[in-house]
């Protein structure tokens, strides 16, 4: 028989795997990730001195560990199709909760022979679901965080810089959202009933318009003296932005490129809605600190307009704390998405995202731990990586 065993000399096809074999086979399954990580780190170390803040990351061991963890999951999400051993939705056989290393029944030719990390209550492969879950998390979490940042920055800059009534009003609104317990908000906002009333679409229509406005103002304030350039940049922003806007907010993209499942839109909007006020408060605080600096006064004396000073003088100087918070916030968003999945809110039951997999696995937790523990550890390591990365970034940016 041994000649028939294709790749692994140490494992017999018909026997369950030992833990050493499981880890060995898993490491092999992740080969595209190792290659990508090796290339990234080799290039980064080689050109470390020419890469600015990113290069400086590689001076701090904490940041290196964090970056490695984060990039591991990023590459896993990218190469998910090559890594996973089965279709994450396929039910393999009738045995419930097969143990890690168990043999897949009736392994057809070309199919993988084992449940690497076991199977769940529907005999779906836990390993493949974890890998596919990484893709889901790593698409939504950074995207939602980016939107929350754009919203928070667009509203926080004028609140801090202009102050007065505008600041009072916007701060009151932000505090309103912040006074809502997050879980309660999720239970109210992420329900099938809400979807029928169209409230998420209205929220999306407002929240998604702000990033488009941000880039229009960004280019308008910089290039309004040279109309040709201005028309080009603002035009590109408007075409791309409104095109994406029509698809994402209203699911009415004429070309069908942009689009979001109504479930996903609901989750996405809620997460942006919860995060944006905190970003707003951070940006507002930083702007109030920076606006008393001399270079801002110099800009005002030169006759620069408000938005130019905010976007091109203050914002670049506020980037340090914002980048650190961005990393932390992606982690926090990941936790929030997991919470939503854990309560079964806004996701389809078969979705492989980590939160709902933990939720599905916890019912038999004390008997068969693997279906819940695997996604739990995955989520924890990603968030830990982001926290370490943020910590390293903070240390390195404080050094100069």
């Amino acid at each position: 028989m041994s000649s028939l065993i294709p790749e692994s000399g140490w494992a017999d096809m018909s026997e369950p795997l030992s833990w050493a074999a499981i880890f060995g086979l898993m490491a092999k399954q992740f080969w595209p990730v190792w290659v990508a990580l090796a290339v990234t780190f080799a290039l980064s170390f080689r050109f470390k001195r020419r890469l600015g803040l990113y290069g400086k990351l590689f001076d701090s061991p904490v940041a290196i560990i964090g970056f490695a963890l984060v990039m591991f999951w990023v590459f896993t999400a990218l190469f998910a199709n090559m890594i996973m051993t089965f279709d994450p939705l396929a039910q393999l056989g009738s045995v419930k909760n097969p143990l890690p290393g168990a043999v897949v029944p009736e392994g057809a030719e070309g199919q993988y022979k084992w449940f690497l990390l076991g199977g769940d209550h529907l005999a779906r492969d836990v390993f493949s679901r974890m890998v596919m879950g990484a893709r889901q998390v790593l698409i939504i979490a950074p995207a939602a965080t980016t939107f929350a940042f754009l919203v928070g920055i667009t509203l926080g800059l004028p609140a801090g810089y202009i102050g007065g009534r505008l600041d009072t009003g916007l701060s009151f609104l932000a505090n309103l959202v912040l006074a809502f317990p997050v879980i309660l908000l999720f239970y109210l906002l992420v329900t099938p009933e809400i979807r029928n009333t169209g409230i998420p679409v209205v929220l999306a229509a407002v929240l998604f318009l702000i990033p488009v406005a941000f880039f229009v103002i960004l280019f308008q304030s910089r290039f309004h003296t040279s109309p040709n350039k201005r028309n080009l940049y603002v035009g590109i922003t408007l075409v791309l932005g409104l095109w994406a806007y029509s698809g994402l907010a209203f699911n009415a993209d004429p070309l069908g490129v942009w689009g979001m499942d109504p479930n996903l839109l609901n989750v996405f909007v809620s997460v942006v809605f919860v995060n944006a006020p905190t970003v707003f408060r951070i940006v507002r605080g930083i702007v109030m600190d920076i606006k008393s600096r001399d270079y801002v006064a110099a800009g005002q004396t030169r006759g620069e307009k408000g938005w130019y000073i905010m976007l091109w003088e203050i914002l670049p100087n506020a980037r340090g704390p914002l980048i650190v918070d961005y990393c932390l916030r992606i982690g926090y968003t990941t936790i929030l998405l997991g919470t939503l999945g854990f309560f079964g809110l806004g996701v389809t039951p078969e979705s492989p995202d980590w939160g709902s997999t933990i939720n599905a696995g916890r019912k038999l937790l004390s008997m068969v731990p693997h279906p819940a523990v695997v996604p739990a550890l995955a989520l924890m390591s990603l968030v830990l990586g982001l926290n370490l990365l943020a910590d390293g970034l903070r240390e390195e940016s404080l050094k100069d």
Partner: protein
Amino acid sequence: MLAFVIRRLGVMLVTALVLTFVVFFLTNLPPNLEKLARSEGSVRMTDAAVASWLEEHGHSGSVFFRYAEWLGAAPGWVITDEKGVTRGKCIGQRDDPALAPRYCGVFQGNWGVSTVFKKTVLFSLGKSMAATGWLMLAVMLVMVPVALLIGVLAGMREGSRTDRVLSTFSITTSATPEYVSGVILVVLLASPSTGLSPLLAEWGWIGSKTLFMGTATSAMDNITFWNFGLPVGTIALYGVGYIARMTRASMTEVMTQQYIRTARLKGVGFRQVVLRHALRNAMIAPFTVIMLQFPYLLNGVVIVETLFNYKGFGWMLVTAAGNNDIEMLLGASVVAVIFVLVTQLISDIGYVFLNPRIRLG
């Protein structure tokens, strides 16, 4: 100071009104009401029957008016049907309609009746909040001292080995949300097949199958270390990391101050410097953080009560939301919102008390 507190209370009241209105609006959306009609009336009602059921039970009309009714700021609805029977929001089953009060809302102490628990909302709320109160108390008793100790030990000598070990610990715990640490703790400590318990049972150190209990339902009647340890530990673990990091940051900053160096140069011992000079000044920032941690604690409570099946406030919130129990959900939201607002107020006032450098006009 007084003016500041009064102004804050005013803003708080407006916030509470706006937030409860939002909750009222979101829980009383037409689809929710339709679901309520079908579950309370009959599942096979026609659309017209649903509409008339809603009208007969005071769920029609403007949402603003119904909100005022619920608050008790507007007179409750009264309907006399064709049989001549008068019913109304404020009229009980056997009461004489003529004697019933006109206003009955939250202000008058009438929070409605839960459709799931079949009890008044106030009664269910009181019971579940008592249960959650014990949980939160235990969490605070564990979390705050541990977090402050870790933060102070890590922050008093920045960059030392102790600092690095403790900081790694606190970063790890703050990256572990409750639903992750709960799962891991159960698998390690409360599973008959994995983790510590089978080993201990084999050695004969424990009589039962597991070390800790995987559910906290029995803690509703009788709290013991073994049934309460895991839920408390799960919530505390997530908070410890965050508070410890804030304490550490505050402590390291204080330790670089001139007066610390002066004290050291005068020959005061390191212990004395930390305990006498640094500690009090380093505690200002963590106090705010701890107070603001309460709302997040609420999150943890909901997750942990669901995970460990402890029938407190969080479990009730989840059950009410899952079963379209509108009045219960409204009551729970009022409590949650007021809880968050009060902790914010206390943190603001306490900050001023602790830090005499801040003056409020």
